[in-house]
C-alpha cells in the first residue's frame, strides 16, 4: 500500500515547464530520495508535496487522501529547510513550539513535547539560545527538532546537509538514518549529492530537466541505470562509459573495444538482454563501474565473468582505502578502483581484469540501456 503517491504531476511557471509528468509512490515508512543536478526540479517537486507550490496538473495523495488543495499546515507534514529557516527572533524552545502554538496545543503539552524531542536530539542545553548563537550543526539539529515535535505523517528534507562541513555531514547523515529507523516515519529527501542518496534511500528517484529518469532501489539505480545520464550521475567516481561495438563471435555476444594500434579487444557479454541481441553489429556504449576493473593477480578466480585486458596506466591516485588508476580504455580515459597496495605505476602497461557480469550497455543514439 503506497503511503505517498505522486501521479502525473506537472508544474509550469508561466511558459516554463519545470516538472513534466512525475509518477512516484512510496510505501509507509519508506525513505524516498529525490536526486539530480541543480535546476532539475527536485526542490520544486518537494515544494508541491509540501503545498508551498501549487500543482499545474496531476495529483498528490498522502495516506490515500488527495492533498492538492490543502494548505501546507493541513497536510500533516514537517519540513527541514536547506537554510534551516529558524526564526531569528525566537529562542530554540520557541522555535520548536511555534507550530504547536499555532495549532492551539496547550502550553503544558508544548513544553513536554519540546523537552522530549530536545532530549532525543541532545539539544537540551540550547533551548534558551537564539539561532544566531548556534553553530551550523546545532542549527541543523534544532531544525530537525522543530520537524520532530510535529509527529507528522511525512518528513520533508530539502538539502538539509549541504551547508555543513564534510565531517559533520557524514555524522548528521548517520543521525538521520538512525532517526528514520527509530521513528519509521515516511521521509522525502532532496539532495544533489548521490552519496547521500545511495546511503539513505530505500527508493531513489533521479530527475533531470523535470523528467523522471529512473525510480528504484539504490542497488537497481547503481547496477542497472536506465540511461547514460543516471549511470554517469550516480556513483563516485562515475561509471566508465566506453565507446565499443557489439559483435557475435563463436555464437556468443562480445563487446569489441578499439585499441590504440587499431586491433580490438573482445569481451564476452553475459546474460545479454533481448534489446542487446537485436543490436548486434552496431555501436554501443559499454558502462563499467570503476570497481569492476581490477588488477588482482588471480583473474577470474571468484566468478567466470572476469576477463583479461591490457591497458596503459596514465596516473594513479591513492585515496588511502584504495587506489584509483586512470587507464586508456577504447580510446577513452577510464577509472579503475584498485586495492591500496596495488603495484600499478603511472606510465606502465598493465594487465587488468574486467568483471563483465556487472557491465551494462547503452545505445549511443537514444542513450537508453540495452
Amino acid at each position: 500500500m503506497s503511503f505517498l503517491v505522486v501521479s502525473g504531476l506537472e508544474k509550469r511557471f508561466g511558459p516554463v515547464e519545470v516538472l513534466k509528468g512525475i509518477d512516484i509512490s512510496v510505501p509507509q515508512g519508506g525513505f524516498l530520495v529525490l536526486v539530480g543536478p541543480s535546476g532539475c526540479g527536485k526542490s520544486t517537486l518537494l515544494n508541491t508535496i509540501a503545498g508551498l507550490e501549487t500543482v499545474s496538473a496531476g495529483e498528490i495523495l498522502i495516506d490515500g487522501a488527495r492533498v492538492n488543495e490543502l494548505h501546507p499546515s493541513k497536510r500533516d507534514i514537517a519540513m527541514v529547510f536547506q537554510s534551516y529557516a529558524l526564526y531569528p527572533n525566537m529562542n530554540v524552545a520557541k522555535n520548536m513550539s511555534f507550530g504547536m502554538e499555532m495549532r492551539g496545543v496547550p502550553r503544558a503539552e508544548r513544553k513536554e513535547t519540546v523537552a522530549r524531542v530536545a532530549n532525543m536530539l541532545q539539544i537540551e542545553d540550547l533551548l534558551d539560545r537564539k539561532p544566531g548563537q548556534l553553530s551550523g550543526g546545532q542549527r541543523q539539529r534544532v531544525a530537525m527538532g522543530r520537524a520532530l515535535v510535529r509527529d507528522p505523517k511525512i518528513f520533508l528534507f530539502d538539502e538539509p546537509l549541504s551547508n555543513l562541513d564534510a565531517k559533520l555531514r557524514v555524522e548528521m547523515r548517520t543521525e538521520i538514518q538512525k532517526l528514520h529507523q527509530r521513528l519509521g516515519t515516511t521521509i522525502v529527501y532532496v539532495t544533489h549529492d548521490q552519496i547521500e542518496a545511495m546511503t539513505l534511500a530505500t527508493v531513489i528517484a533521479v530527475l533531470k530537466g523535470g523528467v523522471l529518469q529512473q525510480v528504484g532501489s539504490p542497488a537497481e539505480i547503481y547496477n542497472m541505470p536506465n540511461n547514460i545520464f543516471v549511470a554517469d550521475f550516480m556513483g563516485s567516481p562515475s561509471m566508465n562509459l566506453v565507446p565499443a561495438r557489439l559483435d557475435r563471435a563463436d555464437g556468443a555476444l562480445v563487446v569489441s573495444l578499439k585499441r590504440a594500434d587499431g586491433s580490438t579487444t573482445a569481451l564476452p557479454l553475459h546474460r545479454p538482454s533481448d534489446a542487446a541481441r537485436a543490436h548486434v553489429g552496431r555501436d554501443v556504449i559499454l558502462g563499467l563501474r570503476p570497481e569492476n576493473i581490477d588488477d588482482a593477480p588471480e583473474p577470474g578466480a571468484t566468478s567466470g565473468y572476469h576477463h583479461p585486458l591490457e591497458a596503459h596506466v596514465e596516473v594513479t591516485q591513492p585515496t588511502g582505502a584504495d587506489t584509483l588508476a586512470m587507464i586508456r580504455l577504447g580510446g577513452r580515459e577510464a577509472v579503475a578502483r584498485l586495492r591500496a597496495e596495488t603495484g600499478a605505476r603511472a606510465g606502465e602497461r598493465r594487465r587488468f581484469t574486467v568483471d563483465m557480469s556487472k557491465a551494462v550497455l547503452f545505445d549511443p543514439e537514444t542513450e537508453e540501456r540495452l
Partner: protein
Amino acid sequence: MAASAIETAVRTGRLTRALIYAALLVFAVYYLLPLFVMMVNSLKELDEIRGGNMLALPEIVTIAPWIKAWNQAQIGVQPTGLAPYFLNSIKMVVPAVIISTLLGALNGYVLTKWRFRGDTLVFALMLFACFIPFQIVLIPMARVLGFLGIAGTTWGLVLVHVVYGLGFTTLFFRNYYAAFPTELVKAAQIDGANFLRIFYRILLPSSGPIIVVTVIWQFTNVWNDFLFGASFADFDSQPMTVALNNLVSSSTGVKEYNVHFAGAILAAIPTLLVYIVAGRYFVRGLMAGAVKG
C-alpha cells in the same frame, strides 16, 4: 562597531591624518555655528542683541525669552506662545509616523513575500510617489480632504502625511525584506501561521533597524513640514512650523530676536531628540542589505 571601524580603516600617515582632522574640524564649526548663535542669543536680553556682537556670550543669562516663546508670545491674534501648536504637532506626527511605518512594513512584506502579477509595477508606481513635488498635490489633496470632510483637522494632516510618506516607507521595508529569507515564511506557513501572524510574529520582530530608519525619516519629514501645515490646517490644528513662522514673521511690534531664536530651537528639539536616541541605528539600518555579510 569600533573594532570593525579600525579594521576597515585605510592606513594613513600622520600628516594625512592631521589634514583630515583639520578639515573635519572646520566643517564641524561651520555647521555648528548657526546653532551656537541661536543658543547664545536666545539667552540674552533684547538690548544686548541690539548692542551688536552676535557671537558674544550673554552678559546676563536669562531664560525669559524661552518662557515667552513657549507660552506668552503673540501668535496670530492670541498670546498663547508655541505650546498649543507644539501639542498640535505631536498629535499629528505620532499617528502619521506609526500608521505610515506600519503600512510601509505591510507593503514591503506583500511586495517581497506574497508576490503577485504586476507587483514590480505597483512598486515602481509607489517609488514614483517619492519624486512628486509637494506643490503638485496641493489642489487635488485639498479636494480629497474636503470630500472626506476632514479639511482643516489634525486627522486631515495625518492622512496627507501618511499618503505622502508611504512611498518612502514602502521603499525602505521592501528593500529590507527582500534580503529576508523567504524560507522563514515557508516554514511559518507549514507551522500553520497565517498571513498576519507571519508578519507580526516573524518579520516585524526582526525589523528593528529598518523601523528605526523609517521612524526617524518620517518623524523628521512630518515634523518639519511647513507647506502642508500652512495649506491644510485651521487655527486650532496648525503645527509648530506654521506657528513659528507666524511668530517670527509678524509685521507688527518689536522684533524680539531672542524669543524667535528660543522658539526656533524649541521647534527643532523633538527631531534632535529622535536623532540622539535612535541615530546610531540610522546609518546601520540604511546600510543593511547594501553589503553582504
